[in-house]
């Protein structure tokens, strides 16, 4: 039995996270529709000046959108799905991070080598990307320096930030841990940052899927589902 490209735990947690992310994204968009205005600081409502508005109709007649109609209210199930997915993805993420630290996965698979971190090393990878150069078969067995830096950024910066800003919106949670919201500068700031971090995570998802497709969609998908990329050559 050969060693899989991606360990069992990586593959299972990857797909649970994928499912949860879609659930969080869809339910999050539904919740935003009930108030598509964003503010900075502690408070904000339709009587105060927004930082920016999203030019879409709203599911509440309270919000002046300029559209002549009100969308149906989807907040009930959206909020329930949002928080249930959040619980599952946080538990999954914790399992993954503990496993990654214990097995040395982060050090071996994600921490870039010092030599790769040179300007020249990074530039070579960027140039390969810009030329749409397909990675060789050997490269399918490890991550390049840009992948490593991006995955580390998503796992250790974006995910913790999106969890933090989410908790900072909970009136009960911040009653126990007020610094969660005061350090950010207020509840509306937390909400706005939660939205921006979601945009960053969505941008990551789009680029991630696009690069998987460019590198060889079937072999990469096979590697993340079965653990083995296979050997058949694919056309672009």
């Amino acid at each position: 039995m050969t060693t899989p490209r991606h360990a069992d735990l990586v593959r299972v947690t990857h797909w649970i996270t994928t499912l949860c992310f879609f659930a969080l994204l869809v339910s999050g968009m539904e919740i935003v529709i009930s108030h598509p205005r964003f503010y900075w600081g502690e408070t904000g409502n339709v009587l105060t000046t927004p930082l920016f508005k999203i030019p879409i109709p709203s599911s509440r007649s309270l919000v002046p959108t300029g559209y002549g109609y009100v969308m149906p209210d989807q907040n009930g199930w959206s909020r329930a799905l949002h928080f249930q997915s959040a619980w599952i993805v946080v538990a999954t993420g914790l399992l993954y991070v503990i496993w990654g630290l214990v097995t040395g996965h982060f050090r071996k698979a994600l921490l870039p080598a010092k030599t790769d971190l040179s300007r020249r090393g990074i530039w070579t990878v960027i140039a390969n990307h810009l030329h749409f150069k397909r990675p060789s078969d050997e490269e399918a067995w490890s991550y390049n320096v840009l992948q490593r830096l991006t995955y580390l950024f998503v796992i250790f910066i974006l995910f913790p930030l999106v969890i933090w800003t989410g908790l900072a919106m909970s009136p009960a949670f911040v009653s126990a841990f007020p610094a969660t919201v005061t350090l950010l500068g207020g509840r509306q700031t937390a909400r706005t940052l939660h939205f921006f971090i979601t945009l960053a995570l969505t941008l990551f998802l789009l680029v991630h899927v696009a690069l998987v497709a460019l590198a060889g969609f079937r072999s990469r998908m096979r590697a993340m589902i079965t653990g083995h990329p296979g050997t058949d050559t694919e056309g672009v």
Partner: protein
Amino acid sequence: MSQFSRRKLIYTGLAAAAGVSGLGVAASLAQKYGLVPPDHGGLYGLGETLTYASQRLLTRHSFAREFSRSQISERPLPNEIAPLSEPFKRLQAGGFADWRLTVDGMVDRPGSFSLDQLKSYPSRSQITELSCEEGWTYIAEWIGVPLSHVLNLVGTHPQARYVVYFSIEPDWWESIDMADAMHPQTFLTYGMNGDVLPVGNGGPLRLRLPRQLGYKSVKFITHLTVTDSMKKFGKGLGSASPEGGYAWYAGI
């Protein structure tokens, strides 16, 4: 089947068995310590229960953030509500002189209180934020009598678990557990920003609980019932909110 995969199968089986029995123990402990919300069933019951249980444990004694007078919002937003009913309008025409709050259920001395009676009890104020589940917020000074004061006056039975509160408006009712009901920041609110509580913000009497989202702070309160079970109320899910698809517990 190879030796390797058989061992793996046994380990997976053992882990699954341990997981299932662990969940069973957790569920009975949660039930015993009152960590299971009335709307724990259904597709999202897991998330609702995890949120309620963890926040109940974390926040039993914590206080909602209080703000300085300078942070009070210039205009406290009156949220949209359905047109007011005839009974409300009649009481409003009389300056709410005949507004009554009746308290019954598992109490030693059921009673009925006028607004003047409620105002004669020690008055408290808090400058806290109202956070709507939609995302908007405002800060106001809320003036009233702590709900615990009234509950102590009527004497709740030791087996009481929930306080159910009803608006004069039809189908508008909520409930909270005793930890929230007895919390010092849970008010029967009759004043705002140094004045009477405007009708738009829930006047003449609103139940205010700043550690949960705005929809738990029901407007136009006329009736409180103390109970040990939510099964007898509505569909038994705890309040009108779960019947409309919203969570009973709204700490997030």
